[in-house]
Structures are given as C-alpha cells and as structure tokens.
C-alpha cells in the first residue's frame, strides 16, 4: 500500500481504481472525487505523484494532464485572523 495523498490518506491503489471505475481522463475530475490536492498541503505533496500515475494509466504525456488550479489562501488561515480577532489563537 502506497499512500500518495497524505492529507486524506489516499493510496495509489485507490487512485488507479477510481480512474478505472469512473473512466476519469483529467486530474481536475480525480481531485473532485477523492479530494486529492484539496487538503492542508493544497496538492504540494501529491499532485506531481498523481500526474505520474495518471500519465502511466492513461498513456498520456505528463504535459497533457491538466494541473488543478490552486485556491487561496496559499496556507491555512484561522477564520478569526481574517477579522483581527485575537481570541482566535487562545
């Protein structure tokens, strides 16, 4: 068992199984089913590995795999910090 997504504990086996089950052709789609790339690391750990898996399974060049768009905030922010609430860290 190889864990690819450390935020959601998604394994290589699950990724391959999901690609086959739903006939997935893009990483944007895989992301939406398995949550890969949407955890605390925002895909910094898992996305390059998933691109390599997808490229192998789909027989596509890694350049032809859509890279998911990053979302703000770049790093997690406490909700209280958006409004200067000092109690947020207590």
């Amino acid at each position, binding site marked *: 068992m190889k864990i690819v997504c450390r935020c959601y504990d998604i394994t290589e086996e699950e990724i391959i199984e999901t690609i086959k089950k739903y*006939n997935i052709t*893009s990483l944007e*789609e895989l992301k939406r089913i398995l949550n890969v790339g949407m955890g*605390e690391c925002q895909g910094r750990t898992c996305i390059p590995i998933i691109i390599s898996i997808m490229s192998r399974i789909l027989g596509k060049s890694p350049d032809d795999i859509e890279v998911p768009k990053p979302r703000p905030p770049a790093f997690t*922010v*406490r*909700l209280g910090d958006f*409004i200067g609430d000092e109690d947020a*860290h207590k």
Partner: protein
Amino acid sequence: MLISNEKYDVIIIGAGSIGLMTAYHFLKMGGKSVIVLEKGYLGCGSTGRCGGGIREQWGSPENIILAKKSIDIWEKLPKELEDDLEFHQGGYLILAFSEEEAETLKQNVHLQHKFGINSKILTPEEAKEIVPILNTSEIVLATYNKRDAKASPFRTLFALKRKIEEMGGKILTHTEVIGFKVKGKEVKEVITTRGSLKTNLVVNATGAWSKIIGKMLGENLPVEPYRHEIMVTERLAHLFDPMVISFSKGIYFQQMPRGEIIGGIGNPEEKPGFFIQPTSWFPYHFAKTLIEIAPALRHVRMLRHWIGYYEVTPDAKPIIDYSEVINNVIHATGFSGHGFMVSPMVGKIVAEMLLGKSPSIDIEPYSIRRFREGRIVRETGVVG
C-alpha cells in the same frame, strides 16, 4: 478527436447536475440515443462548485414542489445509481434575527405545511440543541426540517456519468458548442469545437452560460451569471448535522462527512458577469458573520476559497420551458443558485418533455413567458 456525421435523438448541452439528471431519466424512461456535451471537464461548472445543500424549506410553491419531489428521488438515488453520493438527511436550520424575519419564516412554514412538508418552528434554545455551537443571543427563532439534506455534487455527477454510460448514453467532455445549423425553426445540427452532430432535440442545460447558448439561437433568455464565493475549512470532529442558513445575513454553512465545514456568504454589491477571481471581501465578511453565529469557529482554519456562479432570473425561480423561437429546443436553466438540489425532478420533467409525455407537474409556472407578461413574484428564500 474529431466527430462528424453522428446523429442523436437528443443532444444535451451542459454536463452539470441538470444535464446529467436529464440524460439519466431519459434513458431510464426508455429513451435510446442521447449525448451530453460539456465544454470543460466534468464538474467544471456550477455543480462542481456548489455547497451541496438540498432543502424543501422554500418560500414559493414553485420551488417547494420541485424540491419536495426531488427529495423523493434523492432518497432512492444512491441505490438506483449503485454509488455512495454522500446523501444524508441532517436537516436545514434556518435562523431569524429580527421579528420581521421571524414573521417571514413563519409564513414560509405555513406555506410549506400546505404542501405536506414537516418543517417546524423552534425556539433559540431548541435550535442550540441541534447545533450546539450556535450563539443564540441574537436569534429570534429558527425553522427546521429534518428531511432536508446534503449530497456530494462531485460524487453525484460521477455516479450519474457511470450509470448513463452503462445505459448506453454518451458524455463528451472538452467539447464546446459554438453554433447551430438551423433550418426553418428547427436545429438540425449542433456545431462544436470538435465537429458537428445531427439531432432531433436539444436541451440547453448550461446554467450560467445558458444566455450565450440562447443568443446563438436568436433568443434572449433573462438569465444572468453572478459570482458567488464559498470556502472550506480543515477537518474537525463532528459538531453538527444540519445545514445552517440565514437569509438576512446571506450566510450558509454545513459540516461535511469528512469533517470539513463548507460555507459561503452572498455579496449584495456583486454585479452580473463572469468574474473568476475570488475577492478579499469574502473571507472577511464570511469570517465575521460566521463567528457572530458560531463563535467557536474563530479557531478553525480556512483551507480553500473558490467561486462559482448562480444563474439568476428576475424572480430567482427556474425556467423549464420550450424555446420561444426554435421548436426543438428546451431550456432548463435559471435555477438562481439552487439547481443541484432540484436537479432530480427537473431531469425527470425535461426527460418527459423529450419523450413527448406530459410532464408530471404543471410547468406553466416555470415558463419564459411569465417575465414578458409581468407575472413575477420574487422568491425570498435565496441564500449565499
């Protein structure tokens, strides 16, 4: 890959929840030849960006009927599609923060009861029993309906895709419609970025983009895209079950099966248009309002923040109608931010229309004509 010379009974434009539910019901009712065209990947439109809430607590008969009948279908859908849609009936809790708002919610509940919905009026204390993190100091009353629900928009789309393909339907992603070949008052061919397809019937299920498709057909649909922002937090232990919403504050939030809190707030200043950037207005106002309602959440970290579109009509109610200029086109659009929740029933109605059956509910209230004739009563129960 180019396509050409293929012919289908039905071409559905848009593979969001409305388009795919239509294709699914069409095949289920015995329809044979259908293809769904999607300009991007599956889930790139509004369904893949929405909060996943499903409620029958509405303020107008049109939305109550669609939502109630949709929940009837939602309840059976995971079994029918043989997949986990993360469908869960944890209820909706709607909060009133003034006497005036309390009165509106009471009237809504009264109306809902006429349609057989078991919504209840709760005291702030009763509401806190259901959602213990609530700050009740400003709450006048709440309404609650246990049958209201949530589901995963992504899982729903992909489960539908799998079933549609199993039943012989086709879904073509990354294929954008760029025009139509019209003869007389009928579409003969749909022209895409990958070639043309012949067809007998066309469904416009393109949501925020439906006005653009309408324009290609020479029709001016009263549907405008509005950017709405939404966010998700880190995962937490289970805190509460229902979707919590407030119409006056424009906020909604719920906890997902994995523990994240997902929620959004509407910006009353937002103008129509395709604005793809998230704003700095959103995190500030969302955090401020959420912390007023549920102070403990000040400690929770926001993970991601993104945008999606509400396709809004002048009365915030849907359009489910035949085109007024082209005979073989049906529009199913204008859901004004609430398409996902009503998609099962809308899909069923449109499939009935495609198969020449009479729709199982009266579709007159969803006509395009109502705007021209000035029969507009605005839905008050829109949030986000």
